[in-house]
């Protein structure tokens, strides 16, 4: 019987396991499907990781390495090259591996840290031929950075998510010509620093309110891509077509939390985040099963994944070691301009002094105000100079503020400053 099984040995799983150890759990197991720990960070060889957590700029593998080092001083066990096939409410974890075959492991608590996957061409129904040369940005990144192969010479990138932007620079450094980055929304989906460092510094044009409307193939590989301007309803505008000679299309059109195990365990899901509904301590609707990192909601910065996961690990330790009383939570509702919040529910007695709330806005805001209201009454407000859907927002609610809440729901909303 394990005190805690962590599913996934990427940044979320590593931080959760370490924090649970620090909080006193002894018998902890990380199950990782790859042959090494670190998850997606292993292919993120660019720098910019760790500015918040370690106050320095690290590469992805270095950032993961810090946590892997920290775990060496603990007795946290690791099963590599092992896939979790199923999890259930009794906290049984079914795993397979070449080494140990099929096993059913029992845990007192579980942390789900499976991360996310990329949206594909099929999800956005791009018309045209279906040749080789269309990659999700993350797959291309794996080929370049892990396997050592170039996937193309003349590249169009669809979507301005961070991985696409990073790959624009990476492909350029490897000698490819990145002809354009095309974004269907009127604003970029990535971090501003990535727009500057990965596109502007390399003179790669960013076409906002544009999309790919046709892909043509010659001899099995991409040969031409048509890009069109779109109207306010994101419909292509006839006559606005531009044709590019290229051999490669990289897609950076969003990430989706990887929740097959979560769903099959019967855990309640939030259809806006595509992740589990969680409480203030990252516990899911099934007691003793926690979730953290990109499997809950897609983060911009790994530093925030680590922080969230440390809370989940600590909560798992508290669940196993301590006693907690049932209590009715306060629900967080998405008000105007807010597309989701994490957590979705807060149990006030479980928080020490403050509760972290993360959310995303639906549009670009300049000078603006975030308000948290309890019915008609505003219980907290926060000023911002700039907000965008591509940048996750973070607010703190104090125990004092939450203690005063009269209703069963508080609403988080955003508006332009007056």
């Amino acid at each position, binding site marked *: 019987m394990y005190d805690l099984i962590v599913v996934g040995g990427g940044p979320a799983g590593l931080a959760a396991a370490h924090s649970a150890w620090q909080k006193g759990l002894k018998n902890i197991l990380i199950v990782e*499907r790859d042959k090494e720990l670190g998850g997606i960070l292993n292919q993120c060889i660019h720098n910019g990781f760790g500015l918040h957590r370690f106050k320095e700029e690290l590469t992805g593998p270095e950032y993961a390495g810090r946590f892997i080092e920290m775990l060496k001083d603990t007795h946290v066990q690791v099963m590599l*090259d092992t*896939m979790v*096939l199923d999890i259930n409410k009794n906290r049984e974890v*079914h795993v*397979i*591996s*070449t*080494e*140990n*075959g*099929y096993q*059913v492991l029992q845990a007192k608590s579980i942390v789900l840290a499976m991360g996310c*996957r*990329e949206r*594909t*061409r*099929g*999800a956005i*129904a791009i*018309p*045209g*031929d*279906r*040749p*080789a*040369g269309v990659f*999700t940005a*993350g*797959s291309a990144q*794996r*080929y*370049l950075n*892990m*396997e*050592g*192969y*170039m*996937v*193309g*010479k003349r590249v169009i990138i669809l979507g301005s998510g961070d991985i696409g932007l990073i790959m624009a620079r990476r492909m350029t450094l*490897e*000698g490819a010509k990145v002809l354009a980055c095309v974004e269907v929304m009127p604003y970029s989906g990535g971090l501003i620093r990535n727009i500057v460092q990965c596109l502007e510094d390399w003179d790669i044009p960013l076409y906002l309110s544009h999309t790919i*409307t046709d892909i*043509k193939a010659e*001899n*099995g*590989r991409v040969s031409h891509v048509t890009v069109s301007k779109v109207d306010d309803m994101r419909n*292509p505008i006839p006559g606005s077509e531009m044709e590019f000679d290229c*051999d490669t299309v990289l897609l950076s059109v969003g990430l989706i939390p990887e929740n*097959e195990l979560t769903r099959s365990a019967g855990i309640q899901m939030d259809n806006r985040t595509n992740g589990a509904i969680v409480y203030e301590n990252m516990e899911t609707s099934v007691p003793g099963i926690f979730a953290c990192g990109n499997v809950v909601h897609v983060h911009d910065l790994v530093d925030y994944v680590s922080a969230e996961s440390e809370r989940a690990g600590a909560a798992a330790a508290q669940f196993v070691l301590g006693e907690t009383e049932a209590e009715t939570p306060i629900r967080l509702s998405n008000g105007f301009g807010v597309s989701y919040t994490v957590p979705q529910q807060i149990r006030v007695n479980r928080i020490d002094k403050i509760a972290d709330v993360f959310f995303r806005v639906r549009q670009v805001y300049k000078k603006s105000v975030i308000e948290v209201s309890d019915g008609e009454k505003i219980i907290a407000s926060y000023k911002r100079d700039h907000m965008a859907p591509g940048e996750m927002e973070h607010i703190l609610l104090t125990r004092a503020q939450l203690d005063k809440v009269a209703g069963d729901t508080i609403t988080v909303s955003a508006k332009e400053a007056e």
Partner: protein
Amino acid sequence: MYDVVIIGCGVIGAAAAFELSKFKLDLAILEKENDVAMGASRANSAIIHAGYDPKPGTLMARLNVEGNRMAEDLCRDLSVPFSRIGSLVLAFSGEEMETVWDLYDRGIKNGVPGVEVIMPDKIREMEPQISDKVVGALWAPSAGIINPWDYTLAFAETAVRNGAEVKLNTCVTGIENAEDHYVIHTNQGDVEAQYIINAAGVESDKVHEMVAEKTFSILPNRGEYYLMDKCEIERANHVLFQCPNKDGKGVLVSPTTGGNLIVGPNAEGVVDSSCVNNTASGMAFVREKALKSVPTINFRNSIRNFSGVRANPDQDEFQIGIAAQNFIDLAGIKSPGLSSAPAIALEAVKLLKECGLHLVEKENPITTRKKIRFRGLTDKQKQAAIQKNPLYGRVICRCETITEGEIVDAIHSPIPPCSVDGVKRRAGTGMGRCQGGFCGPRVVDILARELNKNPMEILQDGKGSHILLSETKKEADA
């Protein structure tokens, strides 16, 4: 010199090869692509039709009903995913209700078992998410769903195990009648044959004209599809057709044997078999028509679009027969061609006999195929499988839970794949919601390792579809 050469290894050529491989014959199948099932056989609705649609008295009617009857045993013996879930033809108006009754009459005449006209209460009981505008439907319990490329592979692989040769990348460029045999010219040199079977799909009219007067033309016709995530499978419990019209059987909504939902096709004339692109207008048409049947379909859950080109003849009938001396057409195989395939194969055997081919049965021909699908095993069987071969313990495709053991089995199967999509068709990798985003690079690695090739030689799919173009810079270059 071969006794029989089959031109084309789609489901028709493969089924014919399977039947013929049970006899003592030197048999070869020529395929111009780098794998079998590369035309309409891999891009279609994946339905085994009941057989109420073709006009009574036609070959299509007889072979459809017969092929449907044969499918269940064949799929069990050859380990092909198949499920007899039944189909509904939905009527949305009084006029369409007349069509439904016409189809019912045809079904009775064609010998389709169990056809019934049912009313909205019953329909909604069977299909809770169906449109409330449906006024009635034809219920045909014998219709089924199948994995069409695996049906083709199962026939072709079994034929190979019985001694037939599949020659890939072999394109027929001309046929010469050398008095007592045929000389088939191909891009790989000449092939000699006593008898030829033309199963060349969209190109079957051209192959026919290499030896005989023109009697039919193929009018290539494209159908576009959506394949939806598994979470959409609850939209339909049966194959849901709309009333057929002049363009074909209309847009259907159906579960697939892989556990997804398939939606499509439209019908649009195209130039040739290479026109398998999707179009914005075609996809919009499919969405609109599908929502008429099942308004709850959420197209945000699409995981792939594809299209296939039908080998429609210019006449409303299969073009099956002796076209010239010792030359048999299995041509113009439009829908319900997939459903009819095993019956068409028996027809080919009959026609060869008529041509004078003396057929002697092999004593113990192989008629079964076993395939390990790890996902479908019980926990105990999984444990045993991993003990026997540890590679079954490593999951490569996480969406579909496909193991390295299954991939290696596929690579060393009787018709070895040379591409990532070839592995996909055999093992099921990349069929899931991430569409190979995660497992693609790993499948490239495994293919390169098992085939002893450089990863840059591994193709995505057909000829020329290179994935990796060069190596990244080395330290010295930087």
